[in-house]
């Protein structure tokens, strides 16, 4: 149910961003695509450590009592809130790159929904792969050692894919 919540939360965020993207539609596509490229490159530079700036975020986390009241409902709610990306620590630039891209790319609503579903799926991949490892403490240790590579590679792949899509 936690995974279901994650995907549902991502879907909602994608839907909201997709609806909001209409506000930017009147801007020339060259401006919008240029802004996406700039944000994507800044995000990648931030992940490599070449530039440093804080990421705007709501620093509140999902409270633990959500899980204590009812485990099944709590897990779904916890996943949903994490999946929206709103009430969580955002430690990587990539979600902001995605949000800006969805807002400014001038795509149809179903594209934003796909992006949101993908985001929820990406968040869900963490607990799923962790569980599949059968050794969560070891997996957590390996994640800690690889997290920088994951964020840099993730942002780099996003820059490349956006360049192919929008240029």
């Amino acid at each position, binding site marked *: 149910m936690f995974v279901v919540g994650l995907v549902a939360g991502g879907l909602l965020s994608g839907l909201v961003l997709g609806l909001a993207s209409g506000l930017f539609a009147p801007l020339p596509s060259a401006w919008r695509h240029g802004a996406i490229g700039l944000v994507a490159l800044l995000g990648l530079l931030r992940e490599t450590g070449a530039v440093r700036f804080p990421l705007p975020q709501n620093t509140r986390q999902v409270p633990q009592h959500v899980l204590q009241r009812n485990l099944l409902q709590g897990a779904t709610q916890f996943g949903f809130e994490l999946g929206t990306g709103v009430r969580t620590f955002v430690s990587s630039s990539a979600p902001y790159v995605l949000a800006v891209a969805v807002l400014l790319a001038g795509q149809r609503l179903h594209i934003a929904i796909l992006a949101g579903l993908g985001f929820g799926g990406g968040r869900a991949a963490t607990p799923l792969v962790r569980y599949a490892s059968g050794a969560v403490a070891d997996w957590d240790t390996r994640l800690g050692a690889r997290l920088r590579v994951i964020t840099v590679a993730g942002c780099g792949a996003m820059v490349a*894919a956006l360049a192919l899509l929008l240029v």
Partner: protein
Amino acid sequence: MTAALPPARSHQATGPRRWATDPLVPVLLLAPAGGLAAAQAPALTWAVLGGLAGYTLSGSV
């Protein structure tokens, strides 16, 4: 005289399972998928972009 106990081993996945569930695997799969999708199925690229963005938050709650 008591025999020395063997050192405790931390539980680790072994062999193919350990490699298949390495934390890098999702990024290694999604990164080229994004490039392929951009060339073949642009709509799916956005789902892959979302997946990459979501997975980079591994460890964040």
